[in-house]
């Protein structure tokens, strides 16, 4: 698994887009001015979209392996499929961890955030990052080429972000709409960020558990070996 991990990490870092996603996007995001009202700054929620796309771009390797039939050769090797998936996911997770830490450091300088919020939101981002990786793996299962996969994903991810309250504050949502969008993991991400920004930490455990349950569901399907 460590071999796969280091290899996946190397492959990910070799792509320039990874560095752009990790280093440049958090900086751009952090520069977005906050709302004049007393609600969570836009940067915090829209960063969820960046996480989703970073995870998606990173998991490109898995789709490429399948498209170029590398996965068949790996299947013939003594390498366990779970070691393959585990190595890749932990490599992507490390990169996303770096990004989250980088973003949170920038956030500390840009906005005056409480230490509680800093800790809780970091935790939320980490769980959401894992969820995004699981979701991307699940998503890639339905496509044979990266081009179509990302084309459809960019539409779906933006809709998820919009409906889940990443690009539009949840406060603006009518109750009937909220009833529908609860099925999206992005809703619970935005919900928990909102709650922790407002200092109500009672439901954070539940929302983190919800994100974890989404992660397990997506991983269960996404980790399936398909050739």
């Amino acid at each position, binding site marked *: 698994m460590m071999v796969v991990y280091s290899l996946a990490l190397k492959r990910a870092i070799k792509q320039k887009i990874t560095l752009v996603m990790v280093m440049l996007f958090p900086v751009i995001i952090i520069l977005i001015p906050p709302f004049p009202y007393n609600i969570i700054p836009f940067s915090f929620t829209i960063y969820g979209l960046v996480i989703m796309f970073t995870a998606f771009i990173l998991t490109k390797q898995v789709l490429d392996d399948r498209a170029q039939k590398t996965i068949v050769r790996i299947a013939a090797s003594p390498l366990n499929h779970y070691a393959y998936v585990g190595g890749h996911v932990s490599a992507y997770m490390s990169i996303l961890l770096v990004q989250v830490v980088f973003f949170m450091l920038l956030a500390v300088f840009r906005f005056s955030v409480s230490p509680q919020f800093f800790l809780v939101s970091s935790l939320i981002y980490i769980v959401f990052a894992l969820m995004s990786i699981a979701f991307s793996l699940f998503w890639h299962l339905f496509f044979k080429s990266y081009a179509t996969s990302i084309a459809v994903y960019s539409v779906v991810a933006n809709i998820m972000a919009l409906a889940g309250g990443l690009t539009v504050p949840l406060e603006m949502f009518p*109750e009937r709409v*909220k*009833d529908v969008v*609860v*099925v999206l993991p992005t809703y*619970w991400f935005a*919900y928990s960020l909102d709650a922790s920004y407002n200092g109500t930490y009672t*439901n954070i455990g*539940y*929302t983190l*558990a*919800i994100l974890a*349950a*989404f992660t*397990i*569901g997506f991983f*269960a*399907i996404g*980790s*399936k070996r398909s050739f």
Partner: protein
Amino acid sequence: MQKNRYLSEKTFPYYTQGLSYLMVLYSLSPQSPAVFLLIISSISFNIVKWRFKLPSTIFYLEFVVLIILETFIPGSLLLIIPPLFIFKRWPVPEAALIAFVPFLIQNVTFQYYLFLGIALFAVTFQLLWKNDAEQAELNNDRLRKRLYLQEGRMDTLLNDQQEISRLAALHERDRIAQKLHDDLGHELTGAHLSLKAYKTIVNRNDSVMEAFDKGFERLERSLQALRQTVEATRPLESFGFETFKNMVDQFESPRPVLEVKGNVWSITPKAWYAVNSVLKEALTNITKHASPDEVHIRLEQTDAITQLKISNDGLTSQTNNAGHGLRFMRRRIEALNGMVSITKTNWFTIIVTLPREEHDA
């Protein structure tokens, strides 16, 4: 028949299950994080169950957990209904249990029974559909297998036919060579000898004798030509009894005891072909599967039938089921209105009986 990849008896349960989860979702209050956590956990757990093929008895564990949760979150018990959809058999004991136990708990709504009814109806429909599809698939497989066997049989028979016509040609050539040698050859030789004697007795030296010598030379040349023709016409390849004899002689372990009865020369090429292929198959089988101490081969030609009997005492357990070779042998013989009987008491014996056909000579 092209099967729909997205809607078939295999995918349908997942749709109905998803739909039932949606129904549960909107009959509870989904905005409450605790309720939603419960639902999404149930969904994820079901995915894990499907993915890692957990045993279906885990349903009872789920049931106990949900009964406990029912006291904290009213309506949790509804979540026991969606898992019913992906049972591969009729979930009768499970359904009976979940229909009965809510009597012990208060606050069970009408919705619960409504869902249960709908679910059982859908499960029944799914299972009937699945059974139907499986039956159709099975029938298809059976027909495909039959077609495959028929094609194989056709190939064998076509090959046999070609081989038989080739053998018939060889047989005919042999018959012509024999006729030339026996009838024409002897007559000509007789004439040649008579003329030679005549020349010795007369011993004249004139123009009449010259013409006689010319005729005599021509007769000698034609005799020569006849000999060459006979030589060329007789087939080099062995066939018929010769092949049979060669096969028996070449078999070494152990050397077979051969017994031949009747006029085997009157057996037709078609019958020879069948007899020889049976012998070949039988000898191959003996080499492959049995290690006998004795092998007996008996060929008998009577007025009505041609019969070949091959027996060996090396009966092993492997010889119990008839393989492809024996099946093809049987088919070949049956195509000639013959019969094959195989007995396996102490000795493994194959008896092939063919009706005698009139020789065309």
